[in-house]
């Protein structure tokens, strides 16, 4: 179960939140099951030992109890919700001594384009990030609605045209973490997945240097070709133009 063995600081907090909330709710759910099957068995028509009071249909105290119990559980869960929603807000930068790496994500028809503005490299359907370094994703789209989701690193967020969504994630340890689009966006949707390669800092720098020197250049024409609907293999680029903001402005209001 990915979600329960997460390898990102955000994903692990979300996983513990899920477990916490489930345990809290079991306080109500388990008694319901117990009562259901016990009453069903004990008060079956055949059991004449059981007390039968057909007109007992009102008890102030009991009703008060099962208005109060769910209310209390929900109050606790509500506090948990208010706190966790603010703590795990995708826009909140992660606590770290190191400045976050900026990665720009563009959802294209059935493929993901990743841009590293400060490093002059880009990649398609593959995402190289340094482990233990916070990464701030700026996510937009040049396609129908998609949702950028790497389950082992953290929650998802929608990728929409003209919108710049921000998501802060960090990989705890190096590893390969699959990523998906979590919102149906057309016939090639099932092929719209990628892999996040979290590597050590020096390996990441080596990758950036190699990519910058050997990869083809991502210019206007190459980008325009990518806009056509298709499912693509992994690929890397070098690039110098500010593509992300140009895409964003294209759909701006």
């Amino acid at each position, binding site marked *: 179960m990915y979600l329960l063995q997460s390898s990102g600081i955000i994903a692990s907090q979300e996983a513990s939140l899920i477990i916490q909330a489930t345990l809290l709710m079991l306080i109500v*759910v388990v008694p319901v099951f117990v009562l259901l099957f016990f009453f069903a068995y004990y008060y079956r028509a055949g059991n004449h030992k059981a007390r*039968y009071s057909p007109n007992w249909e009102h008890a102030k105290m009991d009703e008060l109890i099962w208005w109060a119990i769910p209310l209390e559980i929900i109050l606790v869960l509500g506090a948990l919700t208010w706190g966790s929603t603010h703590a795990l807000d995708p826009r909140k930068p992660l606590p770290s001594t190191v400045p976050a790496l900026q990665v720009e994500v563009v959802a294209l028809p059935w493929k993901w384009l990743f841009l590293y503005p400060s490093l002059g490299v880009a990649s398609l359907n593959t995402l190289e990030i340094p482990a233990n370094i916070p990464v701030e994703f700026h996510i937009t789209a040049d396609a129908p*609605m998609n*949702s950028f989701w790497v389950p082992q690193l953290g929650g998802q967020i929608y990728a929409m045209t003209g919108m710049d969504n921000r998501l802060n994630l960090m990989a705890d340890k190096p590893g390969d973490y699959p990523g998906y689009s979590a919102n*149906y966006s*057309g016939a090639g949707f099932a092929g719209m997945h990628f892999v996040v390669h979290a590597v050590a800092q020096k390996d990441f720098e080596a990758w950036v240097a190699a990519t910058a020197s050997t990869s083809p250049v991502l210019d206007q024409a190459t980008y325009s070709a990518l806009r056509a609907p298709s499912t693509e293999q992994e690929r890397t680029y070098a690039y110098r133009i500010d593509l992300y903001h140009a895409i964003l402005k294209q759909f701006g209001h």
Partner: protein
Amino acid sequence: MSLFGLLTPQAFIHGPIETGAQIIVIVAVLVTVLAITYLGRWRWLWQQWLTSLDPKRIGIMYILLSFVMFGRGFVDALMMKSQQALAVGAPGYISPDHFAQLFTAHGVIMIFFAAMAFMFGIINLVLPLQLGSKDVAFPLLNSISFWLTATGALLLNLSLVVGQFAATGWLAYPPLSELAYSPGVGVDYYIWALQIAGIGTLLSGINFLTTIATMRGHLRLMQMPMFTWTTLGSMLLVIFAFPILTVTLALLALDRTLGFHFFTTDLGGNAMMYVNLIWAWGHPEVYILVLPAFGIFSEVVATFSQKKLFGYTSMVVATMLIVVLSFMVWVHHFFTMGAGADVNAFFGIMTMAIAIPTGVKVFNWLFTMFRGRIIFATPMLWFIGFLTTFTIGGMTGVLMSIPAADFQLHNSLFLVAHFHNMIIGGVVFGFFAGFTYWFPKFTGIMLNERWGKAAFWAWIVGFLMAFMPLYALGLMGVTRRLDHIDVASGLYTQPWAHWLFDIAAAGAAVIALAVLFQIIQIIVSIWNKHKHHVGENPWRSQGPEWQEPAEPLHERSARGVAIGAVAALFGFGLIWHIWWLAALALIGILLSLITLPKPEYAD
């Protein structure tokens, strides 16, 4: 633009599997028409059923329409489950575009034409008897509403024969549903089938709320049976939620047909507003469906525990609380769209707040069973099945109402398992319980208990097999609406991914068996009627609807069928841009409304 707008002969030609569906639809229609002609039953059908204003007959027609559409929606489900089982690291046998049409049609059919139709069927049959009014407030409007819903179903099935259906998901989010990404007529079929059926639903809502408000005779509000209360709550939601759907679909239609820019990606369009509006209707919609099911369970539990319903007052308060709260929660369907923590947290907490009245209902049902003499007839089994599955669904629902948890669970198979838990466990089991419980009232025949129990056990086992694995798959990061799983997608390497999908597919097969048992149950019960014949009140229920026999009402009017037929031409004309046809049909509808007869109760 040619005389037939976008309609060309190519629209009749489809891929291999779709042609199969096309042939089945055409053959089914032909066989039905020939059979009726052969038996010389057209006159009987026209006079006794199609033009009848008797709410009981309209109710039975609703239920038959619901069974037909439930059948088609279920075939879609079987195809999807088999494709997902076959397509782990392989293409499977259904193309991605066809798979998208399947899950879109499955969602639309099951919600609008299976569940809503069945709900209005049961309300038509039972509500007038529970109120003692014997009839609804506006009988002609009732017939018109049914035929508008039937027209919506007709247009939807027509998309199998000519053209195709939307490939966008059952709520057709733009920009995918805009012309830029969905150029075909599919989304237009979707819009107009739902728009026409939606107007029929709104009119029914007005009809039944007026019936409850003005035709109760001396029955005071707090004496009304629980099913009437939940119907009152559901109709309130229909009246105040469906206009939002009407606007949202109309705006999308204006975008696609006349080049407006509400939700397009350019010129200031804002697709997020569509999502916001469709769910402002969407969440009340699921409560419209589940509240009558709650009402049925309140009747069933009281009758089969041979006890009065426990805590009537708090049940009424809980129902009305759910009605109000259901309009304050809709953002939990798009926590992940990018709203701030304050908005998400507020709507998350409001969503949990709905769990309180629902929890109270569950406890009141449990304590209706307490100190009762429980008879485990089939309706009671459906109730036990409901409580088990609905409680699991409620837990996962409250879990997903926590935004930070929903960031990981949204649009995954976990979500798919949750809402099937609520809709099958709650709504479908509720309607099956109601169907079995009231079947003797209207036919004098008790449905065969043996086949009924077999159907229940097959349903509950099939349901758990089909959807519990989806919870696990959702936690493994499998999203919904995947027509296949690539070898390179990272899911392929997950050890259980393969056979979890196989279990789910097997579960669907077991449900198919259960549906077969239900069909056998009905045939067996009718075939040897004499053995299953029962008296007036076989369950010895205190419900008012059982106390007097339900005599048929003989008023008739062909106006409902006429408006339904003209509405079908209107929809077809708009879908295929045959403007003259749409204009003529619109004039026909206006004429029909202008020439409405002066009702005898008019002052």
